[in-house]
C-alpha cells in the first residue's frame, strides 16, 4: 500500500469517526426557564442558596483564575454591583477553579466586594451547562433565567447594565 493510499484510509476513518460521534445539539440552561437552584460556600465561609435570593435580581457570573477575559470583566462587575446593590440587585461571582487559592491570588490583585462562591467540583457549572468562559446569567425576581451571555468582549457591560435596570423595574 502506498503512503498516499494509507493517508487516504486514515483520513476517511477520521472523517467517519467525527461525523458518527456527533450527538444531537443540547441546549444550555434556557432563557425563560427557572434558573437551576444551587447552594455554594462563599469565600467568607457562609453558604449561599440561590432560592433564598428570590425577590432580588441576581446576576451569576462564572469565572476562572486562568481566564483572561474573566479578569478583564471583574472591575466592571464590581462597578455594577456597587451601583445597584441597594436596589434589590445582587451579583454572585462563581469561581470554577479546582483549587480556591488560585481565585485568592486573582482577588488580591483585583479586589471585589460582591460574594465569591466556590464551585470547586464544577457541579453548578454543569447544571448551568456553562458553554464559555466567562458566562453570565441574569435571573429575575421570580427566579427565572432571562438573559445568557457567553464570553466577554468590551462593551458587554453596557448590555448588562441595561438588562439589570429593566429587570429591576419589573
Amino acid at each position, binding site marked *: 500500500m502506498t*503512503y*498516499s493510499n494509507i*493517508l*487516504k484510509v486514515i*483520513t*476517511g476513518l*477520521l*472523517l467517519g469517526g*467525527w*461525523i458518527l*460521534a*456527533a*450527538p*444531537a*445539539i*443540547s441546549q444550555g440552561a434556557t432563557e425563560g426557564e427557572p434558573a437551576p437552584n444551587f447552594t455554594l460556600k462563599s469565600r467568607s465561609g457562609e453558604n449561599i442558596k440561590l432560592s433564598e435570593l428570590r425577590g432580588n435580581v441576581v446576576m451569576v457570573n*462564572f469565572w*476562572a*483564575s*486562568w*481566564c*483572561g*477575559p*474573566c479578569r478583564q470583566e471583574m472591575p466592571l462587575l464590581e462597578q455594577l454591583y456597587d451601583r445597584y446593590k441597594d436596589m434589590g440587585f445582587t451579583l454572585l461571582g462563581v469561581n*470554577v*477553579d*479546582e483549587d480556591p487559592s*488560585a481565585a485568592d491570588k486573582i482577588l488580591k490583585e483585583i479586589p471585589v466586594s460582591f460574594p465569591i462562591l466556590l464551585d470547586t467540583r*464544577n457541579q453548578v*457549572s*454543569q447544571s448551568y451547562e*456553562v*458553554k*464559555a*468562559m*466567562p*458566562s453570565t446569567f441574569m435571573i429575575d425576581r421570580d427566579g427565572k433565567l432571562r438573559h445568557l451571555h*457567553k*464570553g*466577554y*468582549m468590551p462593551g458587554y457591560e453596557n448590555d448588562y447594565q441595561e438588562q439589570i435596570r429593566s429587570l429591576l423595574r419589573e
Partner: protein
Amino acid sequence: MIMKSALRPPMSLLCLPLVLILGGCSVEPWVKPYERAHLADPIMSFDRNPVASGYRNHVFQIRESARGAEGGGGGGCGCN
C-alpha cells in the same frame, strides 16, 4: 522503507477541514470550558516563547534540508 519521491497531499486530507466545519457545530465538547485550567497553563502552550523557538527553528533550517510544518495554533484557555 525509504520514500524517495515527494509525498503528494491526498485530496481527502484537504477536505478534512471543510467537513469538520460543516459537521462540527453539532458535537458536544467533552472537555468543558470550565475544565480547561491545565490547557490554559502557559507550560501547555506549543510555543511559549515564539522569539526563541523561531530562532531555534532557523538554526536547524540553515543546516538541514527539512523545512516546514513547524507551526500551528490553538489550545489554551478557549475563552470567549
